[in-house]
């Protein structure tokens, strides 16, 4: 049997991938939009639905960034409500390990797992910045270098809490009057440099034992964290060569933690544009890219690299002659991507050279250098390309990011999924009730 593909639906996020100006674009806040996308994903037999999170509105140049979608609902609350309008779809939420505490997060995920009959997943993210910290009691308390040690200890502590109730702790025997068979159910004690907590956890063990753990970090520390603790890794390496390299790297780290190859799934984020023909799709993709990168957005992107106010520049004109400001104080706050730029002066020189050589304006250059869609083509072309990447071990599946809310997955569900099913690489129905069943992951045992 060929390798089976796993698919997830990412609710469109608060960056320029999401085209809010499309006439078909709906609300990013009203619950009906979440219902629509989740039900489409479930109709197409997807593994899970995915929600990102950011705990402070993004800013650039000291002002709230207003060109992209702004605003999101609370992750846990939306997922619990979606459990009411779906029956099999996994429900994955991004929750920060810096501005939360293990007892509270563990009981929220355990509760979600109970309320969804075993469909909860947690994308563990870290942040350290004082900017986000301004919304929380402790402020920016965590040094950047400590974020993965806190995340690691946070997750370790949460797992101890998930495991703190024996499966059969509740007798609820009306005749004998014994409710709790094990009077010490939930007892825990955890002490390390970040947490010193003890007592009793107050949620009985949930259907999946623990929620499925996702992790998205790409740094060496992030990959190590995933190899040691995660069930799936949400990566950004969506091409064949890059994907294979990443895939081999993280799978290669599993052995030292005594884990098998299939205990960590690699699921890159992927965007797509479908058309009746490949040519039609290419033309659509070009239009979508221009929607995603308006002139104003292009200037803002350029400012993120240059780290300067470039509002006086014409997006249809040439790139600035001045060099980026490389001081520590960054013009853009609240987004992870600005830190991905390696040496800004070197990148600026590359961009200028390319713009000159190819006669590109600022906007045209930004369209070229920022994420092109991963899959563009007819349904057949896209199905083949997706399958190829999975069969060639560049991934185990994809977290698909539609660019229109909430209908952006409809065409994929209607045209690509049936082709994958025909090829025998994607389920035609759910085999079990829980997300662990969909992902082929065992219910973890309780250490004793």
């Amino acid at each position: 049997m060929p390798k089976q593909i796993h698919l997830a639906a990412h609710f469109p996020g608060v960056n320029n991938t999401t085209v809010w100006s499309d006439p078909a674009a709906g609300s990013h806040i009203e619950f009906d939009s979440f219902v629509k996308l989740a039900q489409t994903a479930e109709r197409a037999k997807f593994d899970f639905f995915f929600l990102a999170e950011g705990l402070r509105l993004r800013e650039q140049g000291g002002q709230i960034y207003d060109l992209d979608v702004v605003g999101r609902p609370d992750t846990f609350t939306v997922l619990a409500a979606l459990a009411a309008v779906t029956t099999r779809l996994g429900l994955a939420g991004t929750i920060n390990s810096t501005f939360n505490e293990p007892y509270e997060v563990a009981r929220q995920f355990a509760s979600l797992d109970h309320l969804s009959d075993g469909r909860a997943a947690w994308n563990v993210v870290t942040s350290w910045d004082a900017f986000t910290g301004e919304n929380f009691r402790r402020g920016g308390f965590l040094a950047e270098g400590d974020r993965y040690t806190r995340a690691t200890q946070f997750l370790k502590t949460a797992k101890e809490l998930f495991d703190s109730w024996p499966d059969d702790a509740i007798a609820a025997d009306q005749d004998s009057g014994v409710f709790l068979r094990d009077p010490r159910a939930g007892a825990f004690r955890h002490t390390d440099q970040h947490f010193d907590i003890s007592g009793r956890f107050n949620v009985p063990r949930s259907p999946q034992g623990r929620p499925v753990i996702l992790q998205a970090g790409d740094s060496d520390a992030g990959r190590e964290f995933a190899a040691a603790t995660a069930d799936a890794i949400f990566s950004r390496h969506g091409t064949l060569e890059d994907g294979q390299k990443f895939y081999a790297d993280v799978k290669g780290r599993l052995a030292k933690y005594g884990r098998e190859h299939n205990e960590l799934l690699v699921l890159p984020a992927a965007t797509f544009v479908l058309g009746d023909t490949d040519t039609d799709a290419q033309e659509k993709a070009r239009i979508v890219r221009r929607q995603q990168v308006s002139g104003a957005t292009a200037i803002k992107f350029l400012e993120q690299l240059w780290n300067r106010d470039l509002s006086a520049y014409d997006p249809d004109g040439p790139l600035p002659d001045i060099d980026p400001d490389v001081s520590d104080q960054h013009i853009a706050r609240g987004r992870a991507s600005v830190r991905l730029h390696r040496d800004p002066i070197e990148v600026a020189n590359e961009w200028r050279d390319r713009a000159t050589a190819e006669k590109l304006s600022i906007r045209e250059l930004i369209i070229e250098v920022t994420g092109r869609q991963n899959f563009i083509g007819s349904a057949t072309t896209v199905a083949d390309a997706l399958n190829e990447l999975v069969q060639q071990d560049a991934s185990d599946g994809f977290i698909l990011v539609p660019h229109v809310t909430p209908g952006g997955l409809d065409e994929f569900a209607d045209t690509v999924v049936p082709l994958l099913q025909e090829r025998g690489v994607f389920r035609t129905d759910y085999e079990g009730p829980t997300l662990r069943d969909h992902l082929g992951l065992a219910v973890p045992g309780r250490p004793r």
Partner: protein
Amino acid sequence: MPNLHLAVALDGAGWHPSAWREPDARPQDLFTARYWIDLVAEAEAGKLDFVTIEDSLGLQTDDPAQVQGRLDAVLIASRVAPVTRHIGLVPTATVTHTEPFHISKAIATLDYVSKGRAGWRVQLSARPQEAAHFGRRDVDIETPAAIQDLFDEAADYVEAVRRLWDSWEDDAEIRDAATGRFIDRDKVHYINFEGRFFTVKGPSITPRPPQGQPVVTALGHAEIPYKFAARSADVAYVTPADADNARQIVGQVDLKHVFGDLVVFLEPTSPGFTVEPFSSDATVFSGTPAQLADLLLEWQAAGLSGFRLRPGRLPADLRGITRGLVPELQARGVFRTEYEASTLRGLLGLERPANRYAEGARVA
């Protein structure tokens, strides 16, 4: 006399420690969505204003003969919201060890998923066991000053939450294709909350919820919590011993809505079941629906606007309320026969408030 308002307080198998042993109890189902959906649907069939859902950041008891364990109340409310249409959903959430930023967006989101039916029962935690679950602070209630501090912190917390709810004006999202702006950032506000205990910058990541301000509620038994409720809440729950006591308490709590809490056991009870030696912080009523209706009307005349009834046994006493008490009150013309509004504020006769950050509101 105006119609009275009725809520029920849902907690585990009911408020009596042996409730889970009753013949129609479902102790194996306490941690399932189905259990809570059935209870809230029963309350909605009875046209009740809202349900509250108890919660805490620790176990209820160490006694293995009683119910232990509970699911997060906000998530229960959210799970139930899409399958109910009219009834208000008021989960309990603790302020003492948690973040105002998180609670604010959670209750706002509950308001979105329920289309305007969210509330919040604010709870403080003074239990050392719960503090140890977080390991961040000790909670001291040894002196009156320490107790006052705990309530002052809760008041700051509610203020920060309320400001976060208002931090987006209703028309902040403009989707202006011509300028490419998704929001008008002049209508999204930093709250800059600074108090003795914490600061919160804002704005919320979640736009202003449908009700503007979801309904904030709090239980109190003494002067400090009464003042807290009057300052921070929309509905106070109080525990009078009798009508005179109710009159006296209403005089101390300056709010439109002061609800009397009562634990109720409605006849018939199952063979062998005895209420005693059970006692509670609230008056324990045991009798017929007609007797309960008499008592509620007497207390309403003393100034209470409504009641939060705590069913002693679930589902028996909830059914006693919805199928016994409610028809009795309807027959006396003091309780709704149909829902008259689609939001919780609407059911409680509370206007949708102006936004404190909006231009007109600032002048006023």
